[in-house]
């Protein structure tokens, strides 16, 4: 194991300017911030496309049944401007995803945070950033 200095930029509360960070549709119209989900599984597909990058995670339950979840990210344009690349997430990656469940109850969620098996957090940018944090536990 190596020890490395890892620095994360944290945005301060006051800024030179702010902009509403919204996607081509509103977060609240599709996802419920009060229904947080945590999914652990293997990435089976990555779609680096507009209007939303998307990845699919195969989640195995304790009976061994696999359910494939469809996770929505911000557009690749937004992700790139926030340090993501096409290879930030890859098929086969073991991930833990924190996000908000789709309002219609389907196996879809808006990804807020993606954690890789080695502990690295890959920030998701959600639907352009307007996803509020989940309710306190």
């Amino acid at each position: 194991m190596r020890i490395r200095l890892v620095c994360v930029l944290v945005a301060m509360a006051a800024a030179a300017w702010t902009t509403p960070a919204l996607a081509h549709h509103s977060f609240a119209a599709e996802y419920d911030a009060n229904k947080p989900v945590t999914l652990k599984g293997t990435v089976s597909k990555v779609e680096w496309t507009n209007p939303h990058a998307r990845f699919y995670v195969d989640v195995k339950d304790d009976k061994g049944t696999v359910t494939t979840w469809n996770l929505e990210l911000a557009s690749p344009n937004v992700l790139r401007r926030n340090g993501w690349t096409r290879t930030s997430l890859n098929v086969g990656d073991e991930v833990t995803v924190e996000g908000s469940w789709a309002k219609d109850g389907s196996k879809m969620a808006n990804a807020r945070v993606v954690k890789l098996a080695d502990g690295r957090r890959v920030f998701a940018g959600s639907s352009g950033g307007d996803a509020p944090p989940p309710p306190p536990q």
Partner: protein
Amino acid sequence: MKPVSVVGLPLALAVCALVAVSAQQTPPAPTSPAGAGSQNRGPAAPTGPAKRLPNGKVDLSGVWQGGGPVGDIKLGLAKGETLPIRPEWQKIMDARQSKDDPEANCLPTGVPRRDPYPWRILQTDTHAFMLFEGNIHSYRQIFMDGRKHPADLDPTWYGHSIGWWEGDTMVVDTVGFNDLFWFDFIGTPHTEKLHTLERYTRTNLGTLVIETTVDDLGAYTRPFKITFTARLRPGEELMEYICNENNGYVKHITGPAKDF
């Protein structure tokens, strides 16, 4: 749900920690905190005076962000002003469903709605163009050669725009709109009677104030004014954005537009 503002990077604070990582080489982790998936990279907008073109007019060119309604056009009204919408059109608006927002279905935002993606102004002697990265990745064309609106216009998403200068303000007069786009996420409506008058004033190098008079006696009882401000994104370039390439999930959008 009120729109959430996202802060810009200029006042970012680096939080460093010593972390044990595996010996395997890994690409650097993205640096935006979770939930702050904004487009705010790069330096702060400059504040010096705007430059001039060789013809003496203000140079409005550059890559901008913002400058129009996104979630709610009422955010652009002056303090204390209300939207003078006709009661029957308020009912139409209240019945609109989010999944039917043309913007969510990769159709144009029209005028004056914006999306949060960067856009560029390009000026020539005879035209001004606004190139939009987001939405349908298209452009608005403004005729700056003194022509008038044609008599028989087919209704279109962006209308027919003619522009001129009043001092240091570029004025854009647009008619010939269709009634198919929405003014914002919550579904604020309009009719084909819509006539917009936009005033673009670059108050300093980094700031473009856009005041729009919305004149539509079909859906409103009188014209009303909205003001939004665009910020310059120095060093930014437009990226391709093809909304239709993978937009198959609109069916998952539920609920009324007004609940945004």
